[in-house]
């Protein structure tokens, strides 16, 4: 099982701060694609991904128990 955390407006789009779902074996890119479809999230492809509070690239493979978070970079200032 994995925990997926959503930050900022992603939290509102999904409707929850976190969900529990098994995505072990998938790459980060595949998880993004899956979630984008499931929750109609448009901007996941530009979101930074953290696995267990550490930066993860698109090709990283998720393991059992990993906690995944998505941080959408913003440009305002």
């Amino acid at each position, binding site marked *: 099982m994995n925990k997926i955390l959503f*930050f900022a407006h992603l939290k509102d789009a999904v409707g929850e701060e976190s969900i529990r779902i098994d995505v072990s074996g998938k790459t980060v890119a595949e998880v993004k694609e899956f979630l984008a479809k499931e929750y109609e999230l448009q901007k996941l492809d530009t979101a930074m991904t953290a696995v267990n509070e550490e*930066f*993860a690239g698109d090709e990283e493979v998720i393991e059992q128990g990993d906690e995944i978070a998505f941080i959408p*970079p*913003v*440009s*305002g*200032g």
Partner: protein
Amino acid sequence: MDERYSRQMLFAPIGEQGQAKICTKHVLMIGAGALGSSNGEVLTRAGIGKLTIVDRDYVEASNLQRQQLYTEEDVEQKLPKAVAAKRRLKAINSNVEIRAVVGDATPEMLAELVGDVDLILDATDNFETRMAINDISQKFKIPWIYGACVGSFGMSFTILPGQTPCLNCLLKTLPVQGMTCDTVGIIAPTVQMVVAHQTAEALKVLVEDYEAIRSSFVSFDLWRNQYSSIKMSKAKDKGCLSCGEAPTYPYLEQENLMRSEVLCGRDTVQIRPPKHGDVDLDELSTHLSALRYEVKGNPYLLSVEMDGNRMVIFKDGRALIHGTKDIAQARSIYQRLLG
């Protein structure tokens, strides 16, 4: 001086030695909007030697809700932000040398200004300028501190050339459309929180306390009560064209920059992003309508009336800004809406 900075020198990691260093350092700050106002004030009060401020905009009524250097009088006088900022900062600390540059922070300008600069502070409102800062930082080996915010959501990351990953490692490509303060709003506490992180890091860099520097990427949401700190060392990319083994500094090259030109005899500026994007016109239309702008559109373009200008945005990111021949103003309007 002893009295003025006494509480800062009492803080052990700064001390008298740290204060002496701060007083000789030169910070280049790009942007004098919300982040710039507050960053500039903290550093001026802290007694840095010299502050160079670059900004292309003038003070407007909608800035006053969060841009802390400006007053109602600045709005009436339509002062350029860099000039109004300098005026206030001099009243706060006359010992600090302040240089106000009114203009667009292009790669050429950045390269000119960067001479004896010890630190670049990011207070811009768009990724294009940030990527140029990032390349300048790598090319000239000057640390910079990324900061950004929108709504109640903000983030910061400290970039040390030769050590940390850079912004190009994280983003890989220029995001075409981000949320901006002009499309989804902003509250002042978010600005203050980003600035708290940026200026704490700035002081660490200025007093050369490299051990204390935050190596994680911080992001937070003050309304949703979230805070996250992500370790970043794995993000460093040897093949990165900005900070990798064979850097080309792509965002300093003309072909990767947003192009803008005055259309001959038409009182119109055309803006073209470096790559063909895919702007979500529906979403943009919704945001702009909420802002009370008059918006018309079809599946291919959006036409927006705003403050005497009319902007037509095409689906690929190209835009025409009618009613002006001022390229800097046109770019400002474009980036405030499209990030």
